[in-house]
């Protein structure tokens, strides 16, 4: 073999790259997550359907509620549900970290819904911290008209 000083490292890099999934996990298989299911009752649709299609259902819900003002969903077997993430799904699945998050962590998805929607575990609300940028431009952390306007920003009147 010619140029074995270059070819052999090349072959080793190639094999390492192809077998990355094998050595990355050190041959240890990871158990599938076990989301905590509500003790009784049923879901909106069948369990199998929910497991694979819930994100598509949520998308339909979101569009129906916000774009068509349709807030009632009739499932494939005729049962009716309120269309709502916080007051629908999360009323039955009232622990996001033990339900939604367990699967999502395993599958490495981070739904951005919780940027705006509030998971049931969140009980207390803290006033947002003023960012450095706001301070730099002298913007008061709470603007006029909000519920806390009394304690800030009065002096400017």
């Amino acid at each position, binding site marked *: 073999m010619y140029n074995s000083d270059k070819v052999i490292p090349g*072959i080793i890099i*190639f094999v390492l790259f192809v077998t990355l999934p094998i050595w990355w996990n050190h041959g240890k298989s*990871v158990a599938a*997550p076990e989301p905590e299911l509500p003790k009784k009752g049923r879901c909106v649709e069948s369990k199998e359907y929910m497991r694979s*299609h819930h994100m598509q259902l949520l998308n339909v819900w979101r569009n129906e509620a916000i774009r068509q003002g349709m807030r009632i969903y009739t499932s494939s077997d005729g049962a009716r549900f309120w269309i709502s993430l916080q007051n629908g799904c999360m009323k039955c699945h009232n622990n996001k970290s033990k339900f939604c998050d367990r699967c999502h962590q395993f599958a*490495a998805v981070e739904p951005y819904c919780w940027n705006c929607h509030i998971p049931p575990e969140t009980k207390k609300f803290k006033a947002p911290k003023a960012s450095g940028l706001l301070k730099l431009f002298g913007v008061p952390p709470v603007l006029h008209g909000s519920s806390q306007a009394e304690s800030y920003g009065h002096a400017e009147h």
Partner: protein
Amino acid sequence: MNVVAALVAVIGMVIVVWFGVGVLKLYTLFGVLVPYAALLTFLIGLIYRMVNWAKSPVPFKITTTCGQQKSLPWIKHSRLESPANNFEVVLRMALEVLAFRSLFRNLRADLRGRKLYYGSSKWLWLGAILFHWSFFIILVRHLRLFTYPVPGPIKVLDAVDSFFHIGLPHLYMTDVAILAGLTFLILRRLVDAKVNYISHASDYFPLFLILGLVSSGMLMRYFLRVDLVSVKEFVMGLATFHPKAPKGIGVIFFVHLFFISALVAYFPFSKLVHMVGVFFSPTRNLPNDNRRVRHINPWWEGVPPKFLTYCEWQEKFKEQLEQAGQPIDEDCYKEKKS
């Protein structure tokens, strides 16, 4: 017809899987045995090809160049077009592999009336770059199915790729790009008469196979959907050599898995080996330093040929040279002074 043969082969594969998994329930065969056999074929096949290439002697230094080679100090040397050392070779090779630099110079030739016209043609370059980069990014993104915990860079890649947040699950940009690239590459062979004429079934088959792979993947993500948690559990089992019989996963996943197994097993025996072949091309992996470094022909190893000086050669063929009226170099017969 070549196209039809390739198309029938790919559609036949879907039917085989649909029958084998959907009807006969051969989960272990299609889920475990076929993928493992395919991966082994891929690894052993490609290593064999690489060793085989590395064993082939390169008798001459045949670097392709299209620029000024390194010579006298005041002549500007084109480092990329005529690499003079290994570093410049690596630089040129990297640009070739990552940016398809030589394809960028692709020209088209057209007959208009009785005149032949040449013109710039970047479409092939664009289609190829869309296709190859999307394929690579999709492949890397798939590591989220093979690893736990999933490495941060892969999550970042995923987030960037689904940046536009279209639909749920989000549409990936690379999915659109690879479809666009593949469509162009297939249409090029079908529509352009010059390319059509030189296309074999072995040109269409990889294209249709990859189109099948991509469409089954997109069907699985955006339309039919499978339970991804079960899929990941199963795939992780495969990757860690604890294969479990997959349960509750739709047939579309097995179609996808069969397509990738077929692609991978076909790889070492087809035009697709250009992925590793490019690194073994003597026209691209040698520096153009013929004038400075003597390239020893490997054929001579162990059996050095007997060389003749000009004078020895002239002596050998003197009679014939004289008969043919060729001039004889008299210097050869002068006494050496020094």
